[in-house]
């Protein structure tokens, strides 16, 4: 199905991706978990699960619950900690040519900086993604991402230590004006913005009268949120990203090529697949195929032409 005439590459700052498809943080493991289902080298990029300074067990179960066309998760940033990650997981990445981004999280700004410093040493990594938008941890997390002053501070501090690594800042949709947050991140050094993280939400078990999730609330992802995500991406593109020349990595509910193209037309330079991989672990590569077919059908020679072309 490869067609030499269609240029699928897109630029994320100084980095050229072979195509716009990227795995979303927390939905694709650390590196090799998807090996049985696809050739990771076919991906435009890979963003790992959130990494914190110390290992985290994460929340009690149930950690997920299905909703209409969506799911809530409250994994609670379960992860092996940055040290073990650097020792065990970064070497796995050597097997692939794909650019890897590590998503980082923390309870304090110092913690973010400490993790970023460690990861900045790893030659294999293309960049870091700052998760200031996780709704499932008690301290830090979401509170950073909803306050422009904190976004400015944390982005600035982390930027100082990442050296030449690309810095992605991941935005939460749980705000009145996402452009204000986007502007704060861009002003203080974000090379790339990514959006959207999940919506805080709750499912109640009416038989027990308790929330289903052990963490009570969780983050809503999946096709249910896609139309809100498309709107927010287009808003940030028009109000901030386009004029600032900052590329957007965007998603929310993507599960097929049409969904991905919607995000690209709205302004995304690259598209993330999250929940979609749970249902069809090979969907990213199928989407790349689908985008190629769409371009052929529409006489588009380079997918980059589509970015933000919404009429």
């Amino acid at each position: 199905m490869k067609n030499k005439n269609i240029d699928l590459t897109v630029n994320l700052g100084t980095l050229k991706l072979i195509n716009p498809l990227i795995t979303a943080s927390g939905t694709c493991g650390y590196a090799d978990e998807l090996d049985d289902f696809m050739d990771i080298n076919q991906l435009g990029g890979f963003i790992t699960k959130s990494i914190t300074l110390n290992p985290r067990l994460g929340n009690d179960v149930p950690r997920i619950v299905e909703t209409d066309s969506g799911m809530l998760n409250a994994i609670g940033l379960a992860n092996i900690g940055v040290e073990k990650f650097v020792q065990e997981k970064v070497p796995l990445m050597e097997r692939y040519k794909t650019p890897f981004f590590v998503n980082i999280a923390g309870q304090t700004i110092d913690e973010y900086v400490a993790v970023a410093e460690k990861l900045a040493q790893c030659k294999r990594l293309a960049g870091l993604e700052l998760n200031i938008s996780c709704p499932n941890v008690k301290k830090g997390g979401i509170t950073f991402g909803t306050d422009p002053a904190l976004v400015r501070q944390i982005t600035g501090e982390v930027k100082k230590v990442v050296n030449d690594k690309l810095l992605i800042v991941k935005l939460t949709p749980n705000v009145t004006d996402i452009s204000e947050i986007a502007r704060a991140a861009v002003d203080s050094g974000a090379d790339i913005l990514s959006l959207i993280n999940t919506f805080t939400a709750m499912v109640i078990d009416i038989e027990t009268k308790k929330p289903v999730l052990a963490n009570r609330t969780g983050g809503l992802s999946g096709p249910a949120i896609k139309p809100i995500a498309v709107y927010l991406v287009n808003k940030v593109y028009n109000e901030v990203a386009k004029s600032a020349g900052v590329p957007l990595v965007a998603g929310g509910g993507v599960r097929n090529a049409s969904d991905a193209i919607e995000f690209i037309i709205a302004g995304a330079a690259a598209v993330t697949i999250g929940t979609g991989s749970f249902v069809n672990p090979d969907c990213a590569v199928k989407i790349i195929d689908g985008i190629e077919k769409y371009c052929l059908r529409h006489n588009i020679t380079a997918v980059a032409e589509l970015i933000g072309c919404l009429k």
Partner: protein
Amino acid sequence: MTTLPSKKGIFTASVLQNRGMGAQFFRLSLELEKRANAFFCAASAGQFVEIDVSQLALPVEKLIPENLADSSQRNILLRRPFSFADIDSSNDCTIIEILYCVLGPATLRMKTLKTGDTVNLIGPLGNGFTIPEEKKSAILVAGGMGAPPLIHLAKVLKKQHQDIEITAFVGAKTKNDLAFFDIKTDKLKKKPDITLHQFAKHNIKTFISTDDGSAGFKGFVTEMLKNRLGENKPAGAETIIYACGPEAMLSATAALSGEFKIPCQVSLERLMACGIGLCQSCAVKCKDKNGGDVYKLCCKDGPVFWADEVIWE
């Protein structure tokens, strides 16, 4: 666990049969596409598949049980995990049998599958039961919906260890909840040594309990098990317990395994978003080597665990 996980894949399967066994229990036979043979030929008892049922029809309104009427309106997004109750895989053909109980929107939709329909599944997933060479006897403990993988295990055990002595303990809420088993109803006298067809064909002696006493021993299956272990005192080195069922039952079985010093493997269930180690939704709290807590993944490290590695809460 120690079995080597086989490579996983995504396959289409066609329905050979989807037959009701009582009101809410069904037996689904699936023939996988040829490409799957290489993946499933080494699959072991206790492994499972994730089936995509999102595009199946709901039964007509009058066939939806009242308690599921509301939840049936929910659209399905995620795949659903099901153990093999049997698997027959060769170079030519892979057939898997699934025994399922209608509990919610996904299993309700599965009811509408007909011979010739196709479904999409991912498998084989997880790690199954291990079958140590030295054991002379095996005790199977099935609670409620936990029977399917043990039915499969019984068959495999008999095939691999012809001399192994197997005893099964099967518990359910009521007689009607035993429907995974083809019990001849005329045999359903209230005594605790009824032989269930699936186990009987492998010459397995079976003890039944029901919470309400409507068949077999009245009480929990683990009470019945405790009584028997107390009487027979099997040697821990020669015996192994395999259990599958509700978490409370597994926890009680694990306690008996400790008390009687008999090694025990349990098959756990968790809500699973992916089934393949991507999402960490299926965490099982376990002891790590240093005595601390660690979360293992039910879908990848399990669903079968040693009873003594799990932290029961």
